[in-house]
């Protein structure tokens, strides 16, 4: 039986329209995502000054060889990135779970507190970092002032590795915990109360209910949050950059003690003008991000629904 024109059109419409609807994303991704990525790959094979594109030379994998085998500062930066990843992601997820759990109860002014959670996230990262850098100041910082009540000496937060990582992690955790808490809260509200009632009848107390029911049921959200936090952390730039202001900002401390991989990329590209080398860093960092995100996916997937 031959199809009429209208029927044929209908068929094509059903088949092709969805592609039309999703095409804007892929077009934009192509222009702002894929093309820059491929262009970065191209530049990473060159010895190229940022300002002097005409003088670029093709050097194959020379940048990668230098980066991966002869550059201790790159590995130092990767080490700092991993350290900050652990120091930010784990507390972020744990605090967010706890806060979401508290907000999931009946309490006065619930809406106010829930709205408040998102506030740190919508403030400007530059403003937040500059204020935190003041709080963690050596001579007139609020944190040292409070510590002095307990007899703890003057901590030079920028100077040490552990102290600077702690301060930067505090900024990141402060900024992102509320965001994750709201995601967890939304899913918690979808858990039917009958499950808790049944658990109560079985004699499970609050803490047991939290770990045995709430957390396992939030598994997809926890995986999502961990992966988001991980990828965000791998390109951590503004916090360490602004934590060390002045002309030496891009080195991340006097001994590069808090220079992240993204900051090292920035230093090579925008203070040393080594465009080829920083492009190589960008691609290695992208691969590392995928590996670390995969790793955190595997770890969080192990949360059991029993």
């Amino acid at each position: 039986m031959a199809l009429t024109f209208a029927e044929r059109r209908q068929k094509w419409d059903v088949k092709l329209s969805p592609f039309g609807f999703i095409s804007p994303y892929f077009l934009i991704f192509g222009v702002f995502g894929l093309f820059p990525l491929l262009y970065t790959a191209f530049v990473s094979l060159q010895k190229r000054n940022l300002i002097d594109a005409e003088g670029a030379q093709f050097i194959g994998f020379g940048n990668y060889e230098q980066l991966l085998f002869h550059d201790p500062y790159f590995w130092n930066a990767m080490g700092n990135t991993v350290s900050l990843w652990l120091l930010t992601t784990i507390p972020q997820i744990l605090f967010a779970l706890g806060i979401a759990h508290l907000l999931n109860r009946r309490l006065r002014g619930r809406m106010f507190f829930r709205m408040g959670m998102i506030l740190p996230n919508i403030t400007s990262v530059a403003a937040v970092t500059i204020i935190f850098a003041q709080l963690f100041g050596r001579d007139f910082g609020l944190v040292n002032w409070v510590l002095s009540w307990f007899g703890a000496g003057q901590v030079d937060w920028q100077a040490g590795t552990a102290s600077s990582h702690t301060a930067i992690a505090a900024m990141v955790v402060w900024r992102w915990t509320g965001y994750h808490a709201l995601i967890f809260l939304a899913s918690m509200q979808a858990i039917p109360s009958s499950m808790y009632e049944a658990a109560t009848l079985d004699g499970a107390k609050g803490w047991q209910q939290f770990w045995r029911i709430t957390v396992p049921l939030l598994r997809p959200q926890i995986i999502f949050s961990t992966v988001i936090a991980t990828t965000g952390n791998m390109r951590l730039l503004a916090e360490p950059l602004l934590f060390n202001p002045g002309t030496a900002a891009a080195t991340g401390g006097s001994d590069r003690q808090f220079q992240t991989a993204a900051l090292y990329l920035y230093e090579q590209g925008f203070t040393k003008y080594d465009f080829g080398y920083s492009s190589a860093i960008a691609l290695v960092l992208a691969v590392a991000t995928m590996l670390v995100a995969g790793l955190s996916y595997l770890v969080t997937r192990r949360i059991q629904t029993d």
Partner: protein
Amino acid sequence: MRPKTRNRRIRLIAGVSATLVALTALSACGDSGAAGGKVKLSLGLFGNFGYTDLIKEYQAAHPDIEITERTASYSDHHKNLAAHLATGAGAADIEAIDTGYVAQFKATPDKFVDLNTVGGDQLKDRWLGWKWAASVGKGGQQIGYGTDVGGLAICYRRDMFKTAGLPEDRDAVSALWPTWQAFFETGKRFQAQAPQGVKFMDGGPTVLNAIVGQAPQGYYDQNDQIIVGSNPALRQGWDLVVDAVKANLSAGLLYSTPQWNTGFTQGQFATVTCPAWMMTKIKDQAPDTAGKWDVAAVPGGGGNWGGSYLTVPKQGKHTKEAAELAAWLTAPEQQAKVFTSKGLLPSVPSLYDDAKITGYTNPFFNNAPVGKVFTDAAKKLNPQYQGPKAGDVQTEFGNAMQRVEQGKQDGAAAWEQLVGDVAKIK
């Protein structure tokens, strides 16, 4: 009800689109500039160049020109400029470049208008010879007109010197330190009786910059090779400053950080190495300390730290007008005005014997005869060749000295790492 809402929505969308179209059309007009009306020129600056009044004056004399200033921090400004040159868009019509960066930018002279082709070669004799030479590219292209030079002096707090039992009078203070050795000895005397919480100097890197600026050769030789490891003057200066840090004379602050700025307002240190532009910084940062500061001579005679150039990137739409404005802003009359309003030391030697300049005193600095102090320093100044990445080398010096101040390394280990770090700067 439904159709009506939809109608309203359509109307809303139509209205918004119409506005957008109109705005785009308007901004397109703005871009074309000269065709519609005034020529718009933008000035990309960092810190305080003291041009605001001069711009008003220029606009009054040239009614067809409209000038806007945009100011960023020192490092942001130079990074933005590099990015704008790399992408071929976004640079201001006139961009300021500091001495620490000028060699790096003159390596790509084709990004800038060669000022020699627009009359710069006629103006050449205005400037100090070395100032003019420092911004000339490999093929002889002049990329920038010199604005100020740093010069060197020591700014000190009279009140703190008095408390510590040292002389307050600037001539007596200058006599305390003919050499850097004597400067640090004075520091030890100061520290013995210093007011509580006050250190003799702001931080090792600032002092070290001054000592480096006085050396006959700095970070580079004339062939653009980094000679940090083999230049004895740098190592001697380094050791002197390390000793001073060990003697607890330093507040351990890194210049141009917020902590350093706070140090001025909180009175954490009694002296700071003072190129002429530093006076404006102190005054802007800690206006409450008016009258407490004074200016003494720098140990070891003249020297230079800082000073800038005005360049005209080729990507601008009105490079001819921009070059004219840059030449006007850096002309002797204007440099004299900037000196008396903001204290920036002129780079045109004809002014160094001008009574308007030499007789100038600064009320903020206890009426110090800064005109005389700085022109004297400028006359004694031995020009030092600046290599391509002088700014980056200076950053590594700052970091290395900080490692000593933070107690992470001793002087020898920090120096060793420094030499290795600067060797990687290409």
